[in-house]
């Protein structure tokens, strides 16, 4: 295991990670290439055993980051270290071995479970693929064990996915990953499709499993209340880039990037006495196809100056592991004037 300067165990480290997708190369664009900058210059490290939250609005590239870290996507450039090994260029059999170490839970469990497969078959697949059981008996013991862990009654094994509720499907998706006993799990909006009470069940389950088995999670969500509840550290993405990263408490108490500040002001909180801060953020999220030059947030930022249009701000540590990409934030003590003055 690799340790960083502070002596913490780092499980995953991504440096300068980029993933571009090509679009529009038809007759009308005359062979001109245009690129979707889905993920651009992403730097992050995830400590062993932590829950790392990744938030951002739709289309900001948070799912692509999750897939890159699992190597379900090949990065355009940059490196990904997993437990000290560079996995960004792995292929074939080496990549297949890696699959056992990691897993992903998707937003819509219906689409990640094969509708024609019984639950028992869906759960057998990972065991067979990685040859984890000696015989049929051991396989079934493993399946029954894991069902107990995620709280599913064994009679559901002989049902099809559509006969299960959303919460149950999400538990099965989780069970399938637990069978491999992975080190790292990416949870991509695991509760967004669920009602609040079912969401509470799934969040409690994820927390229990984390405590019991010491997994490392990357928790991707657009819901800032959920991310705050579950994460240890949080990164905020905007149009393909990470613009702020800090410990949970630090991020919510000492918010430094103007985008994060307006995002937190926009999130409704279940407290009717909270005073409304009004709409700080005007306009729409820019497209990741040919994103704005300079700081990508300058088109909506209330503090933008001419430098923001020209020069990209560096993503830097301003103290205590609080990273920000903004020209004006030089230290943790930075104070913004109210945007209304």
């Amino acid at each position, binding site marked *: 295991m690799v340790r960083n300067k502070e002596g913490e165990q780092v499980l995953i480290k991504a440096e300068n990670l980029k993933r571009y997708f090509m679009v529009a190369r038809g007759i009308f664009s005359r062979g001109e290439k245009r690129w979707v900058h889905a993920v651009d210059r992403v730097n992050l490290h995830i400590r062993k055993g932590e829950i790392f939250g990744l938030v951002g609005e739709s289309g900001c590239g948070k799912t692509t980051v999750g897939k890159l870290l699992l190597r379900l996507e090949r990065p355009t450039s940059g490196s990904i270290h997993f437990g000290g090994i560079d996995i960004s260029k792995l292929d074939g059999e080496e990549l297949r071995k890696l699959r056992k170490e990691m897993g992903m839970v998707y937003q819509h469990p219906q689409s990640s479970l094969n509708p024609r497969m019984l639950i028992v078959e869906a759960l057998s697949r990972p065991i067979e693929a990685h040859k984890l059981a000696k015989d049929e008996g051991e396989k079934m013991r493993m399946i029954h064990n894991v069902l107990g862990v995620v709280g599913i009654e064994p009679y559901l094994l002989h049902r099809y996915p559509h006969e299960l509720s959303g919460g149950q499907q999400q538990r099965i998706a989780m069970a399938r990953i637990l069978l491999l006993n992975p080190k790292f799990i990416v949870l991509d909006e695991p509760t967004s499709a669920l009602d609040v009470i079912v969401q509470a069940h799934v969040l409690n389950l994820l927390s229990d499993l984390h405590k019991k088995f010491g997994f490392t999670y990357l928790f991707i969500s657009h819901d800032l*209340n959920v991310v705050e509840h579950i994460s240890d550290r949080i990164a905020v993405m905007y149009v393909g880039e990470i613009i702020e990263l800090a410990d949970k408490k630090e991020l919510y108490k000492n918010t430094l990037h103007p985008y994060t500040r307006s995002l937190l002001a926009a999130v409704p909180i279940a407290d009717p006495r909270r005073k409304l801060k009004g*709409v700080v953020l005007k306009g*729409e999220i820019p497209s990741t196809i040919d994103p704005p030059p300079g700081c990508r947030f300058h088109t909506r930022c209330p503090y933008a100056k001419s430098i923001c249009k020209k020069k990209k701000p560096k993503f830097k540590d301003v103290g205590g592991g609080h990273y920000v990409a903004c020209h004006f934030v030089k230290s943790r003590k930075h104070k913004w004037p109210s945007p209304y003055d």
Partner: protein
Amino acid sequence: MKIRGLKTYFFMERGTVKAVDGVDLDIGKKQILGLVGETGCGKSITAHSVLRLIPYGGTIVDGKILYEGKDLIKLKEEEMRKLRGTDIAMIFQDPHTSLDPVFTIGYQIGEPIELHQVIEQHLIKAADVPKKVIEALETVGIADPEDRVASYPHQLSGGMKQRSMVAMMITGTPKLLVADEPTTALDVTIQSQILDLMRQLRQKLGTSIFLITHDLAVVAEMCDRVAVMYAGQLIEETDVIPLYEQPLHPYTQVLINAIPKPGTKRGKLATIPPLIPDLMHLPTGCRFHPRCPYAKPICEQKEPEFKDVEKGHRVRCHLYS
């Protein structure tokens, strides 16, 4: 608007689905009333019933919807059509499906103006309609409205589509706006813009709003009064602050404590068994008793009444009788 004993049933081959089963609600002038509940509790059908736009197979079997002295249920379809859009307007959850893909935004916003104002009341001239449309787009904060009127829905983002829907409504200056999950499909920063727009609408035009949502955080931010729905019935109704600070019904208590909030410990969210009630085979007695942590024998036998426990705070639970 006063809703009294509203019952909307769906008659299916396998049985009757009691989607709305005896709902009483008052929506005051300039008030924002929230209706919350889980998926399939009947909140959306209640909203659609107000405008008599019930999906195929459903019928209002009983009740009154009193609006300015008229019972909307007894109105003829033509009279009802005159009210829709002018007096009572509706925004839907999914802006992608509520706009017609083959007409421009400008045409679709202008259409209700033409129908209601020009043809029926001769309030404005047909030639002034485009100007009205541009004004409406400006009010809802769409940049370059002169160019945008010629856009088709697919050329707009989700937020802009939802804003166009709001623009379409304000051209009729409605007295009541029924908003069915208006921001569920939107990102948070866009959501806050749309919610702000709705608050301004109440401020400037004095519109009452009937807001249907599953999101208790949105309710806390928007509403004056809140009603909680469970399995086709209201189970609690009160002002917004007591609902969050002293929820009385066990179901409301769980709903409020299941939301991740600053300060709740990881893994310690409140839960109840995740059984969604089957509206075709409802439990006897209190419909919530199979999931209720406080259920007693009486809850299984007798349906509790929906009545005032304190002034202006109605609850349907045997614990308070």
